[in-house]
């Protein structure tokens, strides 16, 4: 599974750093380092929906508050 989080200007201001730290932490906690490839990317062109997180080609709108929820539904459930 490949996850990409946007680190562009707009998403950065909406808290992409916190989202990224949370996802990194959850990947470690669940020992998914071998199964999940996690990377950053510059602007995905969907700033209105930021923070944009792409999971295998599908873009999700995540905020620092919903990061844990998102991980549960979109990552853990589908791995």
């Amino acid at each position, binding site marked *: 599974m490949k996850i990409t*989080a946007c*680190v*562009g*200007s*707009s998403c*950065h*201001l909406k808290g*992409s*750093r916190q989202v*990224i*730290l949370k996802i*990194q932490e959850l990947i470690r906690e669940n020992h998914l380092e071998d199964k999940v490839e*996690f*990377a*950053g*990317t*510059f*602007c995905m*062109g*969907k*700033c*209105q929906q930021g923070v944009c997180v792409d999971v295998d080609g599908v873009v999700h709108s995540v905020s620092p508050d919903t990061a844990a929820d998102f991980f549960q539904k979109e990552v853990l459930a589908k791995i």
Partner: protein
Amino acid sequence: MNNLCADIGWQSYNKYGETLCGDNVEIVDAANGTKFIVLADGMGSGVKANILSKLTAKIVSTMMAAGLQVEDCVETIAATLPVCKERCVAYSTFTIIALHDNEEAEIIQYDNPGVILLRDGGHYEFPSQEVVIGGKKILKARVKLQENDVFIMMSDGCIHAGVGIELNFGWQREDIISYMETFYDVGFTAKSLNSILLEECYRLYGGEPGDDTTACTIRIRKREPMSLVVGPPSNRDDDQKMMSLFFSKEGKHIVCGGSTSTLVARYLGKKLESTLDFDDPEIPPIAKIEGVDLVTEGVITINKVLTYARDYLGENTMYMDWSSKRDGASQIARLLFEEATDINFYVGRAINPAHQNPDLPINFNIKMQLVDELADCLKKMGKRIKVSYF
């Protein structure tokens, strides 16, 4: 003309309790390419000394830059300076360094502590000739410039630092020479070297300078061109043109902005690799493109660089922040403030639709303004700046 240039930094500490400084430094570029640096120290302290030194520095630099001889300058000063009522003389000492085409330095000194020249890691004593002009003994010298020469001009506040407090006879010129020799090889900028000297004076004075203390450091260095591109062009048809101009320039290349780096990666046919390292939580992570020296995010990073630039020109309190950190803004600051001497900005005026959201503190006008202000700050640092819009 050779490929050398002068990196100049100066700073003053006022005599303890004074709000005005009795020393002044003027830097003037003459039309023929000669650069004049004048350090004047007015007699006494406070407002009177301030006026004396300001007039002296201004008169000397303006007249010399207009091609007049030092004899004329001295006569003019003697005739112009207001005579001090208490001491019945008009008096301001001065040091002039004229850099001719960055090939030769002409050094003219009147009563200030002798100019120090550091060359190849050590002190270099250059011969001076004494001439008497209007009853004043003036020392003249000419020195062929070499890369990495460091000239230090001082007011007597420097060599009197610590008199009777830390040291019996003050911090003598020989002591200053051996102190500064130890920093020669580090590769500090003129401004940093100069701060190192003045901080030590301030410390020796116990934080209460007994006299106005001023130093001006000139470092002769190679010109270092650099190019920075930010924003895609407003017309897509100009993509190729902008990219080929940008990459045809000598020196390091910096790319700022998400869409800009995508454009660059496409142009070079290389992969754009983002990182997730937040060295500074405020600044988005940098990315990598083979063939580009630095790839960063745009507006937020540039905004931070501008904050650093303003501070560097003023109080210089944030130096420790950007001089060692690895985030995009700190890296740009180091490259532009310390390494580059000639900077080409390529500014694309495409409007990022995603940034035109009223909820976001970034928009097109702010971006353009940031670049203009940054270019202004860099000019004030003595750099040659060219901005091209697309």
